């Protein structure tokens, strides 16, 4: 089982792609570098969401809370209390993890079912947004402006531009590799049995609570860390962007379009949709605000209606057909 992960880790394709990607700052103008950096941020966020939302089938709408804690709390700690942002990152990641465990526990303790889980997480997300908008320590409605990024690594600064790009490339890689690792580890199998049939999973002795909490905590901590890096890149902690449930909805939609529960699905969705959105915003944002979200919505509806399991499985089927042009008879394992 684990071999699959080590095979991925030692794959020349992976390292080739990473090295080529790492060279991008030398080839791209700052505008396109910004788009790629944003895409990587959303690759990381969608992949981390997928651990709980896709693999365990628990559609969490609470991820804006974790991203928001990572972004707003670490900024507030730096600006109001002078706490180094590396330490702020750890503090906010720990708080996000605890909150994630709490939400997973509430869900399990009361056997809330799918709908109520979506709702409980949405309620937590809304509460987070209200607290941030109403509490001046966290920036209130006007947000927090971080000091200029001078590239001081010890102060969690990466110099913007290419430095930020490399950080995001690292984070995106970590999140995708974490997904591959989990999918190939016992945890991944347990999560899938929980997704497919929770009662059956419990009946065969899977410790449902433990694995649900594990998935939620890993997912929350990763999202929180990405949140801190995101706000450092933006240099402005904007509550309407970073802790609004809309950011979670975007992430959920990227993951759905790419392919839920797959290791590379959410990354594919984010890599396709974020640049599309950014280019549309760049071209038409001033004349038609909202157009890029409108198009996200249309794409998502079209993909869900056409191929509910997402684009990645569709591509895989096409690839398999291309490699084997003869249609194979349905065997016992094909369905």
């Amino acid at each position: 089982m684990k071999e699959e992960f080590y095979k991925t880790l030692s794959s020349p394709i992976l390292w080739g792609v990473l090295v080529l990607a790492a060279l991008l700052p030398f080839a791209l103008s700052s505008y396109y570098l910004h788009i790629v950096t944003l895409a990587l941020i959303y690759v990381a966020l969608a992949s981390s969401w997928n651990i709980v939302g896709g693999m365990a089938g628990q559609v969490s709408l609470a991820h804006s809370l974790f991203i928001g804690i990572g972004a707003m709390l670490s900024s507030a700690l730096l600006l109001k209390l002078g706490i180094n942002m590396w330490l702020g990152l750890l503090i906010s990641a720990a708080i996000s993890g605890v909150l994630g465990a709490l939400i997973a526990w509430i869900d399990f303790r009361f056997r809330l079912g799918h709908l109520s889980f979506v709702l409980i997480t949405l309620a937590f997300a809304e509460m987070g947004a209200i607290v941030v908008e109403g509490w001046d320590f966290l920036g209130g409605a006007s947000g927090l402006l971080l000091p200029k990024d001078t590239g001081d690594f010890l102060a969690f600064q990466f110099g913007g531009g290419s430095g930020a790009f490399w950080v995001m490339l690292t984070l995106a890689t970590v999140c995708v590799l974490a997904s591959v690792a989990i999918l190939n580890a016992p945890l991944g199998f347990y999560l899938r049995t929980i997704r497919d049939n929770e009662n059956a999973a419990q009946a065969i002795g899977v410790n449902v609570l433990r694995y649900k909490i594990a998935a939620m905590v890993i997912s929350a901590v990763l999202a929180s860390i990405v949140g801190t890096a995101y706000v450092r890149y933006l240099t402005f902690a904007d509550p309407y962007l970073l802790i609004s449930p809309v950011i979670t909805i975007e992430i959920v939609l990227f993951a759905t379009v790419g392919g839920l529960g797959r290791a590379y699905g959410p990354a594919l969705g984010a890599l396709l949709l974020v640049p599309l959105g950014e280019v549309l915003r760049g071209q038409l944002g001033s004349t038609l605000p909202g157009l890029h979200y409108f198009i996200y919505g249309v794409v998502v509806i079209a993909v869900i209606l056409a191929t509910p399991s997402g684009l990645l499985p569709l591509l895989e089927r096409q690839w398999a057909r291309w490699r084997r042009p003869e249609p194979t008879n349905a065997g016992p394992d094909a369905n």
Partner: protein
Amino acid sequence: MIELYQALAQGLLIGSTYGLLALGMGLVYGVSGVVNFSHGDFISLGMFMCLALYSALSLDPYVSVIITVPVMTVIGALVYRFLIRPMVGHQFLMVVQLTLGLSLVLQNGILMVFGGQPARTPSVVESKLFILGDVVLRAPHVIAFVISFALAIGLYVMLRSTDFGRSIRAVHQNAHAAALMGIDVGRVQVLTFAMGIGILALAAALLLPGTPIQPTQGLRYTVITLLVVVLGGMTNFVGIMLGGLVIGLAEAFGTIYLQPPLGPLLPYLIFVAIMLFRPQGLTWSSSR
């Protein structure tokens, strides 16, 4: 004490409209198991249609419903027929994601047409007040209260004593058995969804006078509606109206008695507390 009465009155008046918003969602959930995460954006759509009618023809929101309710009902039928029905029977979560996508489309469609500036739609009754002793009630809230409860009672009677109502209840209890009895389940589901969206057009007009509106407000209405529906026990009529009143009261008390950020949190805190002790909702229903 005056504050207490004021909060009570205001909470009950607004809460009744929340109950009305949630009845449509509860009905739809009952007959097709669909939870519509674009619910709040349909409310937005209703409100902005009133705004457009006001700008074009200076129609009062209360008059606009003659146009908005039929239009929204037709939109609801089309949305169900072409977007949601293909997904019924698929995994529950795919419908959630589909309606989240629809929410983005509606919200940003409105933004593209009307721009992002907050807008208001005036009404003749907007500044009228009812004064009961020390308690001051705004006329739009009183009108919303009366119409919401009248409509809730009307729906209840409709469910109990008309053929359509009986077929809705039959499909809710057991869609297979209902189909065997000759009920066109698909038709009942389309009509219920269309009706649920049509009610929203009315609720939108009731909420509108004096309220600033923004294209991005939809999600908050969705969340409020969901809180109410889950508190009420999903498909229980009385429970849903009760849930609406609880959320309305929590909102009013939070605004009057607590400082931000705590005030607006109150409905959510009460919701989480109730869910912790009564995960099945306020009433007996065991639906999840």
